[in-house]
């Protein structure tokens, strides 16, 4: 029997998801044994013609990482969708938009203006911006169109499964690959990570009291947190309550609060809104009677960048998707 064909492709990403695959170390050989990798992250767009020549559905599964920001990326993932039986959105950026999704607070023009003109190191008196086409004599050099908005993979094509994390930990990559190879597939649309919140698996959960009373919101560098205590208990915003588990509590182990790279737990559409409402609901809960609206507002104001903090990884997948720009 022919080995199943597997493709890896990336979009607006950092290369960390490819590193994560390489971090499988020896296990990678097992994967190579079992499947025929027709594309690696170095999946080259010139080989596009080869993909075009394939039958629809010929690729068993495509793992696609990165958010969608350019024309080229959009075309490529549409092509891969047609040719693949399964598509797995690999990593936070493909899943929920990821850090590059923070760019949705801005648009192409403001990004170009900043990067190519305004930053103090650039010397660009003629105001040259990169263009999709540059004529040099009778030759032209082309660049792909840069979109205004970052989108998740699921907003561009139909996605079968999501593998969360920035980057996904090696164990969960292996689990996902094994499940697919063995045909033990969960329901379409499933996020391939435990259906629990990070708090459920966090070693500090013991000290997370039923009711948390945050008298004052602290930023991570403003106090020395007790390495045994729940961050929320100490007044530090942690996205654990609304975030899916499965990461191995990696940030918590480094004594840093969660920022939500695994995305929301099942049933929650808007990760940031859920986190925000959770925090709002526990604010000063014990002293509920004494807390006025103003007090609560005052506490929230202490979070100088609520949008950036609660939507750090998930802005493109939020209800708003992006900030409206006039």
């Amino acid at each position: 029997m022919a080995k199943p064909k597997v493709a890896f492709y990336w979009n607006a990403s950092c290369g960390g998801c490819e590193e994560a695959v390489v971090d499988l170390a020896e296990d990678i050989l097992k994967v190579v044994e079992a499947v025929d990798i027709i594309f690696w992250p170095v999946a080259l767009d010139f080989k596009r013609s080869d993909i075009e020549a394939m039958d629809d559905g010929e690729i068993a599964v495509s793992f696609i990482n990165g958010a969608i920001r350019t024309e080229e990326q959009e075309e490529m993932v549409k092509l891969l969708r047609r040719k693949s039986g399964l598509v797995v959105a690999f990593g936070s950026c493909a899943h929920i938009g990821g850090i590059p999704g923070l760019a949705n607070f801005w648009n192409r023009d403001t990004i170009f203006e900043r990067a190519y003109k305004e930053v103090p190191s650039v010397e660009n008196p003629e105001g040259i911006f990169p263009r999709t086409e540059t004529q040099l004599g009778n030759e032209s050099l082309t660049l792909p169109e840069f979109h205004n908005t970052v989108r998740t993979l699921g907003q561009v094509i139909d996605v079968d499964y999501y593998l969360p994390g920035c980057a996904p930990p090696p164990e969960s990559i292996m689990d996902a690959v094994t499940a697919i190879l063995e045909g033990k597939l969960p329901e379409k649309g499933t996020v391939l990570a435990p259906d629990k919140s990070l708090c459920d698996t966090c070693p500090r959960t013991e000290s997370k009291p039923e009711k948390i009373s945050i008298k004052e919101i602290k930023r991570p560098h403003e106090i020395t947190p007790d390495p045994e205590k729940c961050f929320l208990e100490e007044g530090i915003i942690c996205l654990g309550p609304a975030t899916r588990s499965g990461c191995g509590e990696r940030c918590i182990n480094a004594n840093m609060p969660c920022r939500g790279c695994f995305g929301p737990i099942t049933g929650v559409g808007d990760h940031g809104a859920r986190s925000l409402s959770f925090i709002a609901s526990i604010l000063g809960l014990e002293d509920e009677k004494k807390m006025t609206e103003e007090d609560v507002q005052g506490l929230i104001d202490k979070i100088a960048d609520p949008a950036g903090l609660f939507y750090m990884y998930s802005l493109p997948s939020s209800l708003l998707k992006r900030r409206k720009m006039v």
Partner: protein
Amino acid sequence: MQKRITIDPITRLEGHGKIEIFLDDAGDVKNAFFQIPELRGFEKFAEGRLVEEMPRITPKICGVCPTAHHMASGKCVDAVYGVEPPPAAKKIRELVNSAFMTEDHALHFFFLGGPDFVVGPTAPKAERNILGVLGKVGLEVGTQVIQMRKRLRNIITTIGGKVIHPVCNIPGGVSRGPTKEERDEFLKVGKDAVEFGLFSLEVFNDVVLGNKDYVDLIVGDIYKHKTYYMGLVDENNKVNLFDGKIRVVDPEGKEFAKFPVSDYLNHIAEHVEPWSYIKFPYLKKVGWKGFVDGKDSGVYRVSPLARLNAADGMATPLAQEQYEKMFETLGGKPAHNTLAWHWARLIEMLYAAERLVELASDDEILSDEIRRIPNNTPDEGMGVVEAPRGTLIHHYKTDKRGRVEKCNLIVATLGNSAAMCMSVEKAARGLIKGGRVDDGILNMVEMAFRAYDPCMACATHSLLNTPLIDVVLRRPDGEEIMRLFREDNGNIRKIEK
């Protein structure tokens, strides 16, 4: 008969990469363009963010060297808050950075650029990959490389939480230090890494330096550019990958400038071209003269050989020995040979491993005092480190509540962008004559490029033997004349239309 060659390697430099080479009427190379068709806009979307989150946000610029961004950003937020981390915190950061440098450099030598040399540029192409390296040095060594890398990366995981995108740096220090047991393990790994570094240099010595053809290639003209060089140095002008002043030497090796990062805007400027999403940094005081080398051109180079050129030596004993040997062999300082980057990288790897041992032996890293709570109003600051791929600068300005107002980044991976363009062009010029392109160009041009260390995705490429580079020769009307690419078995296939 104007022709165009497209090389679309999409190597993980910082996103995708593409090289276009234009031929003139005679079929010789007219010019070459190194294009980056992608941009993510960190400098803009940093605006409004909480500055202490920047060390967690900016590593996503590059998942290949997230540790370097995490360090530059950590130092930058210290400066923004005007807080000096306790000595233990600085040492812990440098320790993590040293582990990172060692594993990253090792990877490049054995998996990426190394195969050209260890197996040989003229070796059967099917062997010119990691498997070929293993054939030459033994499977056991291959396992050792994987193991070494894993153990070094575990150091980063232990302190930083995640090896891909660490999280431990905060304004004023680090969130976590090592336990005594962890420290003992770090020390063991460090000692093995020193042995490993020496062994790697031995391999280089036997296989590369022992072969006259390779040496000729290294010192030959095709892979040479006389440029300025930049790197961090300590107070004795020794290479320092983590801290110090930025030093620049001219193409003759004379000190041209030496400045703290806070002064970078007086020295570094960036040029914009309409055909690339990346910018081209150059020395402001010399000026942008285009993609040319020499003393009158502001083009400078960064990363291993540039750093060794920009310094007077290495701060650790074993690396210093190797440093002297290298420059003696290359005929003095500075060395302009692009292929000697591989050699310099191994010397730095040894240095980083030696530093790792020094830092892991230092009891101070076990101190409880690993963070200082900032009490100044945040304002503006800069941070610099040497990333594996060059000098990396972060610069943030905030409002009084510590929200980023402005952010500027001089990203290491792009420090060589102009030079890379030039190197590829020169190699192509030396190899493409009268419009004739053969299999040789593919690897020789790739070599010019790889010396600068294209990133991770290429390693996976080598491991799995998938094509790295596709060369398409086209007529001006865009019609394809010929296409060259590497097949799965490593052979080059040529399709003529």
